[in-house]
């Protein structure tokens, strides 16, 4: 905003030699500019998730009715969740696998909560290109490793939802969750 109308004369300089008139203009512009920041921020922040979306950012899942060998599907943040009740055989088989042979080496213990090893809770989103794999519902194909099978490009996951065969690079993602009781879990 500083724009001189005429050459600065001696009377324009303050005690420190600074240009008095300019300082006021700079201060005004800077003060006004500082005000633009919170305005701009509110215009951007309105795009952040609204309160109703954030309210659904965490869900409670009741697992009491899920028998060993069964799984249920739920929706969390718009994505499918598979909550699977592993049978003792499935747990034993999963532990027997040598993790160094896995594409995405993870032990079953790393993918479940201590004391609740029979509960495998993962996202139902194939890590290849995002399809929803089969295997959670009754009668769906479970693939060659008894877990999940993605029909899009043929990824096979084992009972611990680890990738064993096919193009997917990673195991099915385990979301953040915590058990509120032995059969009730809060996801997210």
């Amino acid at each position: 905003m500083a724009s001189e109308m005429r050459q600065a004369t001696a009377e324009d300089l303050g005690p420190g030699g600074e240009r008095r008139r300019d300082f006021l203009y700079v201060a005004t512009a800077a003060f006004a500019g500082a005000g633009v920041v919170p305005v701009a921020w509110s215009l951007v922040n309105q795009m952040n998730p609204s309160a109703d979306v954030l309210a659904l950012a965490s869900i409670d899942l009741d697992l009491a009715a899920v028998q060993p060998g069964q799984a249920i599907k739920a929706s969390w943040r718009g994505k499918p969740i598979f909550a699977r009740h592993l049978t003792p055989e499935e747990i034993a088989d999963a532990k027997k696998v040598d993790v160094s042979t896995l594409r995405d080496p993870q032990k079953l213990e790393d993918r479940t909560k201590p004391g609740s090893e029979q509960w495998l809770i993962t996202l139902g989103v194939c890590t290849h290109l995002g399809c929803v794999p089969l295997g959670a519902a009754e009668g769906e194909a479970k693939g060659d490793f008894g877990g999940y099978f993605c029909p899009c490009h043929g990824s096979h996951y084992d009972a611990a939802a680890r990738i064993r065969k096919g193009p997917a690079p990673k195991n099915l993602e385990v979301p953040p969750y915590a058990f509120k009781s032995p059969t009730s879990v809060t996801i997210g």
Partner: protein
Amino acid sequence: MSFPWAKHYQPTSEVGKWMDERLPLARFVHGALGPGYPTPKNLNAFYNFGVLAGVALVIQIITGVVLAMHFAADTRVAFDSVEHIMRDVNGGWMIRYMHAVGASFFFGVVYIHIFRGLYYGSYKPPREVLWMLGLVIFLLMMATAFMGYVLVWGQMSFWGAQVITGLFSAFPVVGTYIQTLLLGGFSPDNATLNRFFSLHYLLPFVTFGVIILHVWALHIPGSNNPTGVDVKSEADTVPFHPYYTAKDFVGLGIYLILFAAFVFFMPNSLGEPDNYIPANPLSTPAHIVPEWYFWPFYAILRAFTTDFLGVPAKLWGVLAMFASILLLFLLPWLDTSPVRSNNYRPLSRLLFWVFVVVAVVLGVCGGKPAEEPWVRLSQVLTAYYFAHFLIILPIVSKLEKTKPLPGSISEAVLAKYGKGGAAPLAQPAE
């Protein structure tokens, strides 16, 4: 405008020179709003309002685009989506209130801007096209505001849409067809809501384009000024920047303080409580009224209560309402006084203030129920409104005795601030 003493743009940096040869934006701004645009040095606070109108439009566009990220244009969810914005969207309540209050302020500022033009004769040659472009902007604003209000889909939204689209059915033969075409149905419904959303988003940008033409048309002759006397020499002007950028900044600050007072402390005071009730096609509100800025025209619409010369009263009302704005296009040819500014036209000046009172009281009438004494008052005032522009002003402007004009703007300014000695020819009233 090319006043010969206008400062020319000199790019100061290498980048500046490079751009100037390819796309001279800086040169353009310099000449249009910057040090390169000589402006009369005697402009008063009323000359702030054009810029404020531009700022108001920008605020509406920015808040509007943001609202459109969350608004849902379907009759089943429109009202809910507005409440979602108010309650759940981060800062949504502020953006919504800014947009609603902003519309009122936009009109307030534009009305003052128009009245300034009326008082100082800014519509007179060579600024006739500038004036008419302004009226086009005003019409676009009214259409935009009307449609925007409908989007909320409250009781007033629905019934206001019902009334205004119903006006078109007054036209003989084609009336009902036009009404159905506008509504996309037989009554305001989803079709209406969706097209109003689309057009409400579009028209502000059309308005912006017309504003560019409006400012361009202004810059050809340059600004008028309170004396109405043309710029004659460099002594009459100052560069727009920094003189009027500084002055407009103060005006902007005052505008924003008033705006903030309403947005944060009285956000619903300019609106109708009925619009917080979801639209109900089966229940008419006790008093259907548009927003306050439409009230004078609503009063004119309702002032025609008797059939006349075989034409139904309803059609007269519609014709009069449109005519009340369209007649303003003819103003440069109705007011033929060679003197521009009412500062030097004592009789016109008096009539101007009478007109202001008439317009304001017409506005009050428009907000009241259609009962006595408001109807009779509207009728008398409507008569005056038409008489003012179509009968009185043409006659007065031809016959009135005007005061002598100052020789130049700088002469008038000197007379006001002057170093004693120079006997002022006329005191320009600020």
